[in-house]
């Protein structure tokens, strides 16, 4: 038996060698001159030159952008219409980790992603691995300090708050705070959007619950305990909430990002009266980050995409999806923010604070250890 397994292993190794040997011919597309290293539109001779170079490339590869997420569907359409580029959308349901893997492993191929939209921890990790190309959009200075890398290798794009969504026809006395969720009348009604060790929105939900229950950014445990209690009382159902579970009435109350809740409300218009409120006792906000792949097959188009996202038009489109774009504070001050969309944003009462990266990492570790243990 032993020799057979050895033979198998040898074959496997030989196969690997063979493939590595016969490879090496992977073709990348012609890089338009200078775009791949341009650190700003000015480096290329201004916006017009950037647009020209992008049009010459003709295509843009994006990854992991669901159409119902932060209004990406409309944003993609607007971009296509404005610049006439073909946009290849890959793996719309992909995770941040999937995006990073695609950048790493598809390097040199025409199909590799040009731009990524990452959870902040993944943006930091990708930047330190040297996967992202530093680039400063024209409006870079509008992005608040602390929401961008100094060299422009990543920058926050949009964010939101953890919010309670509920079906107003089924939940007559809606919860206003996280503490309210413990009420017996919500038995079998409360859900998260996934596993907090995997889904960013669910993780944020537990973090917010920690803040509401005597925890802090440095202590997520009360949040885990909160859900363990909810599970025990039967209020929490561990099913992953989605538009389908909301419409069918299975998850009448969910904790999720406010901009995703807004998406459900729009999607279910006429079928479910979906209302959103940001709980005053657990204000937790988080941003996603944009980055350009260093090995982007369409470097100019990638840079044009970022310029578009951070233009007033792009930022207002994010706002229209009820997410809060990075330039919002400046745009509100300048009066360029879309007034209707602004008025539709769920109200947030109280101070907004952010945890440090170290605090978030610690919280994730605790959560990974405790979640299944406390709720199983």
């Amino acid at each position, binding site marked *: 038996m032993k020799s057979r397994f050895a*033979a198998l292993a040898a074959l*496997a190794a030989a*196969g690997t060698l063979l493939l590595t040997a016969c490879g090496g011919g992977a073709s990348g597309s012609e890089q338009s001159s200078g775009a791949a290293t341009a650190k700003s539109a000015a480096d290329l001779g201004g916006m017009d030159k950037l647009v020209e170079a992008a049009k010459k490339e003709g295509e843009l590869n994006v990854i992991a952008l669901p159409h119902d997420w932060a209004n990406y569907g409309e944003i993609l359409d607007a971009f296509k219409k404005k610049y006439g580029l073909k946009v290849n959308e890959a793996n719309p349901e992909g995770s941040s980790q999937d995006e990073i893997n695609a950048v790493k492993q598809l390097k040199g191929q025409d199909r590799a992603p040009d731009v990524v939209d990452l959870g902040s*921890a*993944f943006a930091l990790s990708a930047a330190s691995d040297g996967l992202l190309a530093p680039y400063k959009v024209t409006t870079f200075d509008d992005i608040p300090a602390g929401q961008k890398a100094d060299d422009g290798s990543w920058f926050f794009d949009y964010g939101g708050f953890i919010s309670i969504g509920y079906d107003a026809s089924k939940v007559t006395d809606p919860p206003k705070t996280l503490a309210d969720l413990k009420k017996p009348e919500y038995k079998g009604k409360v859900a998260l959007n996934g596993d907090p*060790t995997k889904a960013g929105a669910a993780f944020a939900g537990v973090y917010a619950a920690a803040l509401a229950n005597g925890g802090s950014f440095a202590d997520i445990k009360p949040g885990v305990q909160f859900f363990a209690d909810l599970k025990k009382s039967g209020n929490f*159902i561990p*099913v992953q909430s989605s538009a389908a579970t909301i419409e069918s009435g*299975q998850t009448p109350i969910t904790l999720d990002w406010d901009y995703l809740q807004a998406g459900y409300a729009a999607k279910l218009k006429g079928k479910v009266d979906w209302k959103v409120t940001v709980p005053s006792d657990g204000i937790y906000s988080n941003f996603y980050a944009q980055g350009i792949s260093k090995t982007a097959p369409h470097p100019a188009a990638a840079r044009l995409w970022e310029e578009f996202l951070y233009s007033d038009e792009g930022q207002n489109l994010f706002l229209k999806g009820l997410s809060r774009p990075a330039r919002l504070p400046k745009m509100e001050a300048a009066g360029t923010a879309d007034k209707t969309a602004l008025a539709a944003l769920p109200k947030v009462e109280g101070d907004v604070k952010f945890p440090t990266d170290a605090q978030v990492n610690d919280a994730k570790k605790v959560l990974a250890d405790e979640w*299944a243990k406390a709720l199983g």
Partner: protein
Amino acid sequence: MTAETVTAAAGVAPAAPAAAPVRPGSARRLLSWVAGHLGLLPFLLYTGVFLGAPVVMVAIGAFQDNDGAFTTENLTAAFADQFGRSFATSIELSALTAAAGAILGAILANAVLGSKPDGLLRKVVSSAAGVLANFGGVPLAFAFIATLGSIGIVTKALASLGFDIYAGGFNLFTFTGLAIVYVYFQIPLMVIVFTPALEGMREQWREAAANLGATRAQYFRLIAVPVLLPPFLASTLLLFANAFSAYATAYALTTGVVPLVPIQIGSLVSGNVVADQQNLGKALGLGMVVVVALVMAIYAYLQKRASRWLS
């Protein structure tokens, strides 16, 4: 071995001659061993390249840190408390649903075989089994939420008859609920893999046995069980592995509250929360291989015992 012999061997694979008589001399013995196994070459080459190589990459990753340096940290972490618990839960769920799926699937396969060989029923069932054996993920979870969830149609129907299953302690989003859902794809898989074995049971055998004065029970004990037990065990093993690696359905239904290894691997290698822990996921993947290797060993032992007991 030269390239020519490889191609030649691949070309005549099914026609490979039987092992030549073994003569002294290690080179010759090696040659004759190779000659005797030529028929396996295409299979081994193919799985070596398309399965072996990727798995080797995963295995290497399990022993690397994020900078590519050697470490055993991932493996140590994979044995930590929380993962041990999920291995136990995963094994329990897989064993339970494999056993239930195997028994129920065998009953269904047998009932279907009673119908006309080329009849519509058989075609419908085999087609449906092929589809349902691969059914899973969010759609399957949703189908069951809409059926046995707290306001599912069966739940409501039973409640109107006076049976409130949720008051009685049932909950779809638990281990029990998961098991009920898993059986939904385990039974069809059993039907597909076990039907050929059942078909091999000749009607003549039963008639011959009956003519010789055997009772139904005797036929069952002395003929049906000995012939069917090995393929039954093998199919159960397959079902075990099938449930063991299933992921998307459990995720959609329980979001990790019922701790299962594939869900934890998914969080590590394809998540939005935990960054830079992919290699720990690979180490857990290796752990899964080890578990199934152990189960394979138990299975081999059982097969041996079964054949001894039956002969």
